């Protein structure tokens, strides 16, 4: 079973303005979660808000049986979630969905994160640390103080490059400019991206131009989270390539091959 009606909150910390990291005690989830998968969390047992909220698995500590999610407060649900304290419980489903495909031995990986998009990519970085692949992390945000987890990312010793919209730290401009250069220099064989839709669209276009494989973690409004209601679909190319199909972000995703997504 993947439904845990009373998962204990271990701690919650603010990592940046409006950004929180929530640590949960969930040994089964921690043992089986793969990077790119998500948790579907019921924030209140009441009816407001009614639906669960999906959050990527951000980190797992198998020894301690813990998992973490990293999220930005954007509305009612996330505001309520930010109030959860140590010892309280949450109703959690997961791990759900299809995660990232790990790189083949020797492939150079590039992780491209826009803002809160670092959430699932951090877990991927953790996982890649156990492998021998070389890893680039390209981290983008609007301003320097919204660049998340720079120190913790650094601890994994990837080649780290940052970009901010206002140039307050790292390169001035979108993080995709860093990817453009990396691809031109042939420094990445496999790219993983998560962030705002406009960023993902640019990543997909760059990958196509350079003939490099990559995967994107997508978002859509969710109902069930398990593939039953068909509300979370995104437009993808059909198997025969002649038309398109709506695929479920919760079940066939949230991670999709970049070349399959139709924008």
């Amino acid at each position, binding site marked *: *079973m*993947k*439904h845990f*009606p009373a998962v204990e909150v271990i701690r919650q910390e603010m990592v940046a303005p409006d950004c929180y990291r929530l640590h949960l005690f969930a040994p089964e989830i921690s043992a089986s979660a793969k990077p790119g998968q998500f948790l579907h969390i*019921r924030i209140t047992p009441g*009816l*407001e*808000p*009614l*639906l*669960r909220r999906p959050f990527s698995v951000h980190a797992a500590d198998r020894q301690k049986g813990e998992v973490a999610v990293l999220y930005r407060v954007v509305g009612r649900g996330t505001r309520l979630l930010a109030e959860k304290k140590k010892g309280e419980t949450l*109703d959690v*489903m997961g791990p759900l969905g299809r995660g990232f495909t790990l790189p083949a031995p020797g492939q150079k990986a590039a992780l491209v994160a826009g803002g809160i998009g670092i959430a699932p990519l951090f877990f991927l970085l953790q996982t890649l640390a156990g492998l021998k692949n070389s890893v680039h992390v390209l981290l983008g945000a609007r301003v320097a103080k919204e660049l998340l987890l720079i120190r913790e990312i650094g601890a994994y010793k990837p080649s780290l490059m940052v970009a901010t919209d206002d140039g307050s730290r790292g390169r001035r401009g979108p993080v995709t400019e860093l990817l453009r250069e990396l691809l031109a220099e042939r420094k990445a064989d496999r790219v993983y991206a998560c962030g705002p839709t406009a960023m993902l669209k640019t990543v997909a276009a760059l990958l196509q131009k350079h003939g490099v494989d990559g995967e994107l973690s997508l978002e*859509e*409004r*969710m*109902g*069930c*989270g*398990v*593939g*039953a*209601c*068909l*509300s*979370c*679909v*995104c*437009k993808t190319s059909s198997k025969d390539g002649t038309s*398109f*199909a*709506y695929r479920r972000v919760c*079940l066939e995703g949230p991670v999709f091959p970049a070349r399959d997504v139709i924008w």
Partner: protein
Amino acid sequence: MNKPNLTVDIAGLRLKNPVLTASGTFGFGSEYAPFVDLNRLGGIVVKGLTLEPRLGNPPPRMVETPAGILNSIGLQNPGVDCFLAEHLPFLRQFATPVIANIAGNSLQEYVAVAEKLTGASGIAALEVNISCPNVKRGGLQFGADPSAAAQVTRAVKKATTLPVIVKLSPNVTSIGEVARAVAEAGADALSLINTLAGMTIDIRRRRPALGNITGGLSGPAIRPVAVRAVWEVYQAVKLPIIGMGGIVCAADALEFIMAGARAVAVGTANFLNPGATMEILSGIERFLEENEIGDINELVGIAHE
């Protein structure tokens, strides 16, 4: 005291308990198998099936509203042939009746889908959806008008030997009148209600929130509307009723039963709590025991006495 009787009869179909899943909220069953013991359900009503595969409507397809959700899925489904080949075999493993929900753009399509399902082993009944608010044709166009509703019912009845359950819409002036027309046309049972037509506007984008502009409202917000619909239909016709609309707990289900429903279906509540059907079932059982009622059927329509 002995365990109370929970079995109910819907149009000759014997259900081990009155708790079903609502079409479109439980996929083809397999999606919820990691969360629910499918053997314990009274019945599984699958996603609406059409003759050909349907793409469905453009996203966003779901928005939250106070105590409810609006959806505009638009009957995305792989088509009846794919259902029979790829999804039904999974469902046959369980000792739970499978009810196929069907829809069509035309009378002929309803008939063709009904015929394909009738030959298949493992289908216990058909639920005829004449009440989907999210497709341009084939939903409400049949359900909103008593004579069109009767016409579909008659055609499907002729095309199948399976029990025919007709699913009614609340988006009508008199649901009792549609129920009477459908009953006269030979329906074996009725299910109600489908979603209520609605919409919301995203004021930041200054556009409708749903890709399809309008959608269907479900969840606790619609429960009183649904209970009243069951009440009215119970008085209008003698057919067994499957009640639904906003049921999230056993007390909600019991309201429908007392209003006249012989079985209930759980929809939106599955999204909040994948264990909802199981909790509702145990809650009904507990209520019967606590009140020393030996048989669930004693409560059906009791509020009318």
